[in-house]
């Protein structure tokens, strides 16, 4: 069966050092991870500050939504074609994947902050915390699970998409897919797809563990981890808490 053959292909130690005179699994994996890592780091550098700013101040939300939607519509293949036509190096590729990673992380960061019970933040401010202290000591720890959720989304997305650079002669696990396609070798191609998927899921699992650890104790676990929902007693019907300064 195709799938089993592909697993065998992956387990063949020779394929780890060389595949058809080209870089083997080890090298492609390394390059794939490196490129993904760069993209994730830059994604975080761009999306986190913006997301935290939007989440903390509530400003610029509409703008971010529009930008994120437009960015999401940009076909990676097209953008890679344009940028690599101009300069065939890693930086433009990283740029494209950063663009891919920004929407989920941005959303995670700002949704994480928004999901925090307004009263908690309000009370913190009323106690005399500075804005920076509120961000550091209240919002970041409480939003950590959702922020990491966003990071997981971005990472998954980036690792799966980096395969595209193989079209343009940059190393990635996509080489096995393209090579398999060109040689009519479905086993190799399936093996490439499995490698990418497994890599993405492994990294995702790692981040999931991190997310577990980052979930503050005392905050109910589970999706959303929304502190906005912990109140249990009937609360008089009132206008949404919109005060704030």
């Amino acid at each position: 069966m195709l799938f089993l053959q592909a697993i065998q292909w992956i387990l063949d130690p020779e394929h780890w050092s060389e595949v058809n005179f080209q870089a083997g699994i080890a090298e492609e994996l390394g390059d794939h991870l490196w490129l993904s890592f760069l993209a994730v780091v830059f994604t975080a550098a761009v999306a986190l500050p913006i997301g935290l700013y939007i989440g903390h101040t509530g400003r610029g939300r509409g703008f971010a939504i529009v930008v994120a939607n437009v960015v999401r519509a940009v076909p990676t293949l097209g953008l890679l074609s344009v940028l690599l036509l101009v300069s065939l190096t890693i930086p433009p590729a990283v740029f494209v994947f950063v663009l891919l990673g920004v929407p989920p992380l941005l959303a995670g960061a700002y949704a994480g902050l928004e999901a925090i019970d307004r009263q908690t933040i309000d009370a913190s401010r009323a106690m005399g915390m500075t804005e920076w202290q509120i961000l550091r000591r209240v919002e970041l720890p409480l939003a950590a699970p959702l922020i990491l959720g966003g990071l997981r989304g971005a990472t998954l997305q980036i690792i799966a998409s980096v395969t595209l650079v193989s079209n343009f002669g940059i190393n990635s696990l996509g080489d096995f897919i393209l090579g398999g396609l060109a040689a009519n070798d479905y086993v190799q191609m399936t093996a490439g797809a499995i490698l990418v998927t497994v890599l993405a899921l492994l990294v995702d699992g790692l981040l999931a563990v991190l997310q577990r650890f980052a979930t503050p104790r005392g905050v109910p676990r589970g999706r959303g981890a929304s502190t906005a929902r912990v109140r249990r007693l009937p609360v008089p019907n009132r206008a949404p808490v919109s005060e704030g300064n």
Partner: protein
Amino acid sequence: MSWVWSHLDLIWSSTLAHVALCVPAIVLGFAVSVPLGYWASRSAGARGVLLTLGNILYTIPGIALVVLVPVVLGLPILNPVNVTIALLVYAVAIMVRSAADAFASVSADVRGSARAQGFSGPQLFWRVELPLAGPVLLAGVRVVSVSTISLATVAALVGIPSLGGFFTDGFQRSFLTEIITGLVAVLLLAAVFDVAIGLIGRALMPWNRRQRLSSAAAASFTIPVPQTGGR
């Protein structure tokens, strides 16, 4: 620019081909995801399994999926249905999560009170849960439509006509104008779909119009699913 004017017919036909690839994927993706999402919202176990499965499907690289679909299903290689099926897989992978969230977002109070009024099971689903899940479902469909349109460009890599052809061809010929034409066409098409779906939603959900249009748009941004920027 003159290249664009002289190739309007080509742009148009590629756009139509692109639409023909995407629309069935979006529509079927919705139709498949709603029951799955409903199931996931009802059972924690199903939710875990379905969402994990979605994540796995979602990480399969696009080219691999487009090529492997005909191998696995035994379809002709150049059949556009291959691409549509691959797009459908991604659409479901994304949409199941938002459908699950959509149904989970239906207030338990409203559900309980509807049951207490004497809604039977199917009546509850069709008249209460589905419409109330509507805004979040709509947000999910918008994400799916945009990403499907963007993703469908990979069809070009396997010789199936789509707007992606402008990328591969333009690249081979070092022809920026052509690639950018393709990019703009994809973006415009995505925008048209987004607006159209938004309008359909507005028409179908009048109660949602005043208070929550912006929050539904926000939800489309907030859904922390991995988005398919197009692979």
